[in-house]
């Protein structure tokens, strides 16, 4: 392998109407690293993740996955999405499908895996997230934490090279946050490359290889967690962290 980052975001620009959300944002994620995105509400964390997963068209700049520009319109976007996994704040499980069918949908329809093989694989994945016995349930019969774990299993079953997490614990009750963050820690030990938007500073400290503070549509400050969270250079980072501390989240 070359020393090239797995994911490169180059001068990314994204505009909604007159709001410039991303304004020439640069960001690299090395293979097997965990990069945590922090920033005020509305700073564009979700937008960045959605652009990387090609769920939004970008207005300028590029996203490179393994060195290849995937924002090029000639690239098969479905095939690129199939290689990345994203987990949303609001789970977004398919309510009309059972847990097992939620997890096997993409393997069967996108990756063309036979049903029984896909189900074996899905059950193994559900076993990992501790939900094998709920395989036949529908999403609305599960707790929020269980739903989020299914959503993670649904993304992981496709063997993604990169996982994107968008505030996956902020819709959860405090006692359920741990079970989901625990899964992310486990993924890190297995070498999964992850880009994680979160307000959980404790998690960022423990797990992140680097922390990026988003502000004004760019990465204003980035570095190892102890530096960005402990001794930030930028004024705005400091103020953001102070507000977080006041809100009791550090």
């Amino acid at each position, binding site marked *: 392998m070359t020393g090239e980052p797995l994911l490169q975001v180059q001068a990314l620009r994204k505009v909604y109407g007159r709001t410039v959300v991303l304004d020439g944002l640069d960001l690299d994620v090395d293979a097997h690293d965990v990069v945590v995105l922090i920033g005020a509400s509305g700073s564009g964390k979700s937008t960045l993740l959605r652009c990387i997963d090609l769920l939004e068209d970008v207005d300028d700049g590029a996203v490179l996955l393994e060195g290849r520009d995937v924002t090029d319109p000639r690239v098969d976007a479905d095939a690129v*999405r199939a290689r990345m996994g994203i987990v949303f704040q*609001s789970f977004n499980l*398919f309510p009309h499908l059972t847990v097992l069918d939620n997890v096997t*949908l993409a393997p069967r329809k*996108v990756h063309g895996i036979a049903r029984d093989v896909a189900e074996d694989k899905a059950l193994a994945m559900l076993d990992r997230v501790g939900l094998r016995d709920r395989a036949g349930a529908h999403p*609305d019969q599960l707790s929020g934490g269980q739903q989020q774990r299914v959503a993670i299993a649904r993304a992981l079953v496709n063997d993604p090279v990169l996982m994107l997490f968008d505030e996956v614990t902020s819709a959860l009750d405090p006692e359920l946050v741990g079970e989901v963050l625990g899964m992310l820690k486990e993924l890190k030990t297995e070498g999964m490359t992850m880009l994680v938007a979160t307000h959980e500073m404790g998690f960022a400290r423990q797990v992140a290889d680097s922390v990026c503070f988003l502000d004004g549509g760019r990465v204003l400050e980035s570095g190892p967690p102890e530096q960005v969270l402990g001794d930030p250079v930028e004024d705005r980072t400091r103020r953001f962290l102070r507000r977080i501390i006041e809100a009791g989240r550090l």
Partner: protein
Amino acid sequence: MTTTWTPSARQRDRDAYRRGRTRRSVLVSAASTVVLVGAVVLVTVTSPGWARVQASFFDPRVAWTALPDVATGLWLNVRVWLAASALMLVFGLLLAVLRTSRSPVLWPVRALATGYIDLFRGTPMIIVLYLVLFGVPGLRLQGTPQSQAVLGTIALTMTYSAYVAEVLRAGIESIHPSQRAAARSLGLSNTQTMRFVVLPQAVRRVVPPLLNDVVSLQKDAGLISVGGTILDAIRYAQIQTSETASFTPYVVAGVLFVLISIPLTRFTDHIARRNGYTFTGGRA
């Protein structure tokens, strides 16, 4: 549970009280029904015009003679109704999917679907029937069906597909965009997302209004009699009426239509009432 529970004296007292109340309200409603129905019947049959009204609309002998023919004709209406129901669901679905598609390749088809829906939702059913039943055979084109039952089915399908398409479109658009995003993020194509994620949820949501259209189509299946040569329930009733000078055969046909629609209407109500229509939620 293994604990044995016997209701307390307090609960037994409550239950006894409730039973007493229930018995009383049943008696009261039975009595009031008897009084009301009796009054209506009495007033009706003693009113001066009743003999003429009965001869015109409720002549039992005429009803009895008309029944076999009208019932035979009804079987044709039922077949037309079932065929048109199946067809309208298929075409309605096609129109709805085309209309909600975003692919630029499909732009002309989308415009066509939109135009079709606007046109047929606005045109009275009877006009479409006249045009198809009388206009199409007049063309003498090769391969056009000549049977008025088939032509009637086509006309009903043409109009009702537009209604069904609108109902389905509303269902499709009610599915939260985050469901699409989740499906696309897994690598599903646009078509696969529609087929496996959006449509199954959309259809479940609009089952009650779809059933309403099926009920309404059942009534309108009676309109094919305007073709004149179709021997359906209403046409038979018309013939019988001209022979007996009593309108009773129409009443017979009407009653039969109502009898067929009742189970379906009840079923629709049941579905609509069954709230918490499960597994169709979809969080923001």
